[in-house]
């Protein structure tokens, strides 16, 4: 029996009066990559941000239904949101390194979590940079500013930063949309590597990317989950007409 890492049941989400998600039922298996696809504004980012409670701070935001991590309610009272976000890391569309050194960017999460031991920090920075396939490119300039890195390197730095706190789940919102084909390839290779240790949910507008990196694909439209299934099936013979229209580029 595959282990369900994250599950949403009848998930509704409102931005004030506007309902952005309708009754989303979706399971994410451990060590699988799931791609979320759908036209702009269909609620992919909203859904992703529900999972690590990034929407909490938005005024008027309301979550109904159930979202669980390892069977436990993510929205239960008493859940430590800092610890939740340690377990569920996130990488954004635009790389957002802090204006600090490369080393400090990666060590940041550990410092927030109270780690002070220099040896532990060194080791973790080293292994996270390696995990993000960036170490060889930056190992001689860990003390230079992260802002001097290329876009693709910055994005991998952000992945290293997310990995440093040893998350169990990685949420990626269009992580390669600002990158060139080579940097994109590196991120995609990385996703394949990372899924050995992590469960990954990735939002992408590139059908080819979804097809290349994911095991499962979920298609959203107007805040609803329209179809979810094995990526091979979704891209060769989807069941739903709207899914087919979207992935063959005939939408709208």
């Amino acid at each position, binding site marked *: 029996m595959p282990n369900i890492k994250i599950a949403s049941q009848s998930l509704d989400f409102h931005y004030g009066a506007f309902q952005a998600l309708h009754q989303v039922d979706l399971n994410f298996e451990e060590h699988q990559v799931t791609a979320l696809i759908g036209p702009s504004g269909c609620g992919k980012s909203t859904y992703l941000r529900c999972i690590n409670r990034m929407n909490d701070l938005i005024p008027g935001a309301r979550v109904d239904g159930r979202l669980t991590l390892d069977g436990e309610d993510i929205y239960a009272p008493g859940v430590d949101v800092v610890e939740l976000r340690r377990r569920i890391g996130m990488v954004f569309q635009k790389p957002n390194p802090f204006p600090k050194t490369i080393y400090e960017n990666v060590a940041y999460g550990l410092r927030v979590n109270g780690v002070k031991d220099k040896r532990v920090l060194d080791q973790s920075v080293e292994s996270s940079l390696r995990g993000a396939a960036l170490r060889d490119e930056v190992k001689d300039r860990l003390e230079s500013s992260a802002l001097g890195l290329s876009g693709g390197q910055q994005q991998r730095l952000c992945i290293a930063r997310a990995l440093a706190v040893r998350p169990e789940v990685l949420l990626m919102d269009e992580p390669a949309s600002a990158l060139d084909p080579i940097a994109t390839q590196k991120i995609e290779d990385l996703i394949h590597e990372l899924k050995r240790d992590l469960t990954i949910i990735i939002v992408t507008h590139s*059908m*080819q990317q979804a097809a290349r990196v994911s095991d499962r694909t979920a298609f959203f439209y107007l805040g609803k989950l329209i179809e979810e299934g094995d990526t091979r099936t979704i*891209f*060769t*013979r989807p069941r739903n007409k709207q899914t*087919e229209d979207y992935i*063959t*580029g005939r939408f709208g």
Partner: protein
Amino acid sequence: MQQRIHFTQKLDELRMQLIRMAALTEKAVHDATRAYLENDTDLAESVVMNDAAVNDMEDAIDTFNLELLALDQPMAKDLRLIIGSMRLTVNLERIGDECVNLAHRTLFLSTRPPLPANARMERLCAHVQDMLTKAVRAFVDEDTVLAGEICAMDHTADELSLKVLKEAISTMVEETRIVERSVHVIMASRHLERIGDLATNLAEAVIFIKEGQNVKHRCKG
């Protein structure tokens, strides 16, 4: 999705080319069978000559498909149309080849005294023509029910060709002078039977394009 309009036009163009190639093949089967049954050597020669056009169309459609795959990265039903169309062209091209083979039998037999009319061969000719026509219509109309019927028709083609064989063997035993001609009749029936098989492959490709189901090897009993 503006850029997809252009792609959709290319798929329409692909469909048109397939229909054109199918029409050429249908004509080849029509002419080759008529030439055989009526001993028409001019018509048989024209079948041999015209086969180059079918081959050219296969090459053209292959190139077209290769470009579609490389430049447009089709998905789902579009991808199935392209893969399916490659199957269609391969089988249409082979039907063309069998028509040429049949034409060669006609040309050979015309150099020998005529054989009596063979009702089974007449039925076989009509039957495989019907199979091909239906397969092409199934493609044009995306009609998988019709495609399924073609698979069932293949039995009759097999049976008829087997009967031609048995009948020819018994006449050869009775009269050795017609052995040579009878061998050519048997071969002609094989070509026809093969056209039936290939038309069945066309029907299977139609089902694949429409439903994504691979019914290859399942159809034939």
